[in-house]
């Protein structure tokens, strides 16, 4: 399991118990001339992109430009209308299980059940990731949720729920994170902390694909942007 560092220690080198399967700089995910059609509207076509290990790809674009649809294609939730997705140079359809095991997708919806407490939600996601149960009090405290571990998530604010949802990343062992609007409802300090944490993941050889309308403040070599144009 990856060690949990508070914000102040984020510059410390992260000791990892198991390295990611794809080494830094190698091609992780590749999309070749993707097309996506929703309700007779072409969201994008002939879209090609590459994500290497250690890179962050920001998908930008106006509302309705197809950012979430692209992320869902990349997460393997829907099949592209045209084009090919390759993971480690192999077609995604052939190695879907391997890909899914190395992927952490947090979509537009939080994945948090409102009747369950933060601890219970995290316990569920630990189990879903195949990890042993552990004490998440320290993790929730790092995320500024100390004292709120034991109340149902419906009592939490939108930003606090988003923090609970993102807490999953802290114990995720997946190399590729696909995050749809991770900064929604978060305050400035949480956004800064999350970006620090992204930086850690990237320097360890992880890769991130995310959508956001906020400019990223992090300084890092491997930041790429794809801009989707809104099409009629």
């Amino acid at each position, binding site marked *: 399991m990856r060690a949990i560092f508070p914000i102040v220690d984020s510059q410390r080198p992260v000791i990892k118990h198991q390295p990611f399967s794809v080494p830094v700089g190698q091609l992780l995910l590749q999309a070749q001339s993707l097309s996506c059609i929703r309700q007779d509207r072409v969201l994008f076509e002939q879209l090609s992109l590459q994500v290497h290990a250690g890179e962050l790809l920001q998908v930008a674009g106006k509302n309705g430009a197809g950012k979430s649809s692209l992320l869902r294609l990349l997460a393997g939730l829907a099949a592209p209308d045209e084009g090919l997705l390759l993971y480690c140079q192999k077609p995604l359809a052939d190695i879907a*299980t391997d890909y899914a095991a190395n992927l952490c*997708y947090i979509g537009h919806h939080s994945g948090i059940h*409102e*009747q369950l407490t933060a601890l*219970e939600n995290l*316990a*569920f996601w630990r189990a*879903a990731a*195949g990890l042993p*149960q552990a004490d998440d009090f320290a993790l929730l405290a790092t995320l500024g949720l100390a004292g709120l571990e034991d109340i149902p998530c419906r009592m939490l604010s939108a930003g606090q729920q988003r923090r609970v949802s993102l807490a999953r990343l802290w114990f995720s062992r997946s190399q590729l994170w696909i995050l749809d609007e991770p900064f929604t409802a978060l305050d400035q300090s949480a956004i800064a902390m999350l970006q620090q944490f992204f930086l850690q993941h990237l320097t360890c050889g992880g890769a991130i694909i995310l959508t956001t309308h906020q400019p990223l403040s992090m300084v890092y070599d491997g930041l790429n942007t794809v801009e989707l144009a809104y099409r009629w």
Partner: protein
Amino acid sequence: MVTLGPFLKRELRLLARQKADWLNPVLFFVIVLSLFPLGVGPEPNLLRIIAPGVIWIAALLSVLLAAERLFKDDYRNGVVEQLVASRQPLLAFVLAKLLANWLSTGLPLVLLSPLVALLLNVDMASFTAMVLTLLLGTPLLSLLSVLGAALTVSADKGGILLALLILPLYIPLLIFASAAMEAAGMALPYHGQLAVMLAMLLFALALVPVAVTSALKINVS
């Protein structure tokens, strides 16, 4: 390594917090059956004749009542979508849902059977048959209703669609279960009916979990 335990714990915890979800169908079952003696009159022989059919129809409807909301919350809050994306845990999630659904809607019906037998003047031989058919039949009801719930999870008003989809599948079970109880009432052997019900249960047990995972995948894509 994904294990079933934590998933089942979560489902049971949710059931403990949302008691109306499973208490209402169970109460519905009891209320319907207690209305029958009032409606058709307290004639013991008449009640004994209609008991098999009435008990099983009430059981079918009560399980159907519990089915609609089964995946709704987890679909709306994105849990289903994210589990589909990570593939591996989806089957454990489905199995936990199935087991929790039977524990909360099927098992109470079995436990309530002595009360029901009293209400409808069921004799001892039929009562044994009733408990056996409920034990074999309610897991099958749960399996089919979970399948229906998974297929209709993305439909806004899925309730009627779910009933149209699932009720026809309940018919063989209804026929064999009430036939077993009738045979028991006439002191005839009913192993044949039980064997057919067991066969249907095993068949559904083998196929339904896979069908449910596919239905969920289709609904998020």
